[in-house]
């Protein structure tokens, strides 16, 4: 399930800016552990942000997105009090969703 994300969403002049911080290892699959064995790749493959039911961003990540991924984007619309939902899934089949309220 992973740890909770940190989602911030703020509306200014009719545009909502969303900033997301995700807790994830984003292991590349190229690193070796202390014993010299390759640590298997483990990374978020897809992340989707919704405003209510409407998808406002869908992204695909490769393993070269940094550990604890950060994402910021803007969309037209949204008002204070609306829900923003962010969901991700990774290459091991794990997934998680968190919500925030537009401020």
């Amino acid at each position, binding site marked *: 399930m992973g740890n909770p994300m940190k989602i911030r969403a703020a509306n200014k002049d009719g545009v909502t800016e969303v900033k997301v911080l995700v807790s994830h290892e984003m292991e*590349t699959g190229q690193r070796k552990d202390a014993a010299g064995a390759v640590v298997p790749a483990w990374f978020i493959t*897809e992340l989707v942000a919704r405003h209510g039911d409407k998808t406002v*961003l869908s992204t695909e990540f490769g393993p070269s*997105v940094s550990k604890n991924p950060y994402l910021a984007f803007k969309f037209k619309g949204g008002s204070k009090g609306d829900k923003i939902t962010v969901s991700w899934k990774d290459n091991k089949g794990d*997934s998680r969703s968190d919500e925030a309220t537009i401020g």
Partner: protein
Amino acid sequence: MNNQRRTVLKSGSGAALLGMLAAAGIITPGIALADWNKAAFDAKSMADTLKALGAGTPADSKDVQVTGPDIAENGAVVPVGVASSLPNISMVAILIEKNPNALAATFTLPEGTEANVQTRVKMGQTSNIYALVKSDGKFFMATKEIKVTLGGCGG
């Protein structure tokens, strides 16, 4: 090393496994939506990546900007952004020329979402970063070099 990585990707992930998990009800179908573009993320060179993204040979455009510092103090976390004033942008991608696999991330932008995204990527070494955008069905590109520097104490 890269081969091993590809094997892991083949066996441990990909659409097939996710499909299976979805069928088994382990992950909700609502989350297992799009197909992760394995061919594009597995591609090594810039040319192969662009091909896998269906971008062919994109034209350089002054209306696409890659933002980020000229110098990254550490390659593990390099802040990069893409912005563009081109009309009707439906897709943005970030590519790192000298990484083992060039493609870092793709962003699908529904109508109403601005062509202005920021994220953080890993860079193995100093490299050109490319921003690819799809505007009115056509692809455009811009580039910026980011220098990755070493730390003092030697890791």
